[in-house]
């Protein structure tokens, strides 16, 4: 809710204007400032792109990786097939290596939510040795 609309409602609550006047004011505000497009209407990105331009290691280097987000989702769904015994063994090894992460607590739905929101992520690293960009397109 924007500030002007809040002020109109505040005036209505304080009895300074009537309900009809408030309605007319809110309609006028809506005409001046049309609502932004619904979030679902924007074009969803389809690919995760990783671009690396480097001047290290002798000659100029370039990495260009394009991964369909659908592929990430399918890969995440595959993780749900890992048996509990295997997850237990991985957890044990992670603890021994000083990484206290419990993979059994990581649910496929959480991973899918993570991928769902990947399209909002943009990573841009610029340094004299090179440039790294991670984004969705």
């Amino acid at each position: 809710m924007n500030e002007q609309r809040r002020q109109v409602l505040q005036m209505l609550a304080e009895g300074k204007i009537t309900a009809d006047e408030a309605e007319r004011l809110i309609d006028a505000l809506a005409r001046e400032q049309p609502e932004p497009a619904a979030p679902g209407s924007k074009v969803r990105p389809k690919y995760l792109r990783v671009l690396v331009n480097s001047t290290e290691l002798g000659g100029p280097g370039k990495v260009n990786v394009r991964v369909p987000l659908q592929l990430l989702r399918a890969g995440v769904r595959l993780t749900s097939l890992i048996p509990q015994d295997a997850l237990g063994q991985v957890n044990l090894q992670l603890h021994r290596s000083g990484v206290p992460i419990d993979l059994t607590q990581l649910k496929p739905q959480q991973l899918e939510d993570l991928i769902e929101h990947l399209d909002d992520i943009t990573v841009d690293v610029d340094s004299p040795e090179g440039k790294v960009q991670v984004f969705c397109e």
Partner: protein
Amino acid sequence: MIPQLVTVRSRGRDGRRRRFFIPVLPVLLVLSPLLLLAVLAGLVACVVFRINPGGALRGVGQVLLALPGSQFEIEEGRTAFLVSVR
């Protein structure tokens, strides 16, 4: 849609370029007897490791269906390597 064409390009230190176009469906048809054996071996492995075979097949299928559009390209100095799935 399953992948239709895999393109592999490489450029060696001598600057020589190589390109391979792999039509997936004909190659799968030619290799189908081996593929059948691989699927059977995979199903046995699923039973041994107590993984749901149906879920595994569905998961692998989803990964295959999602492959088109993938691209991996790396260049370093004069050498380069590219794999693209369409």
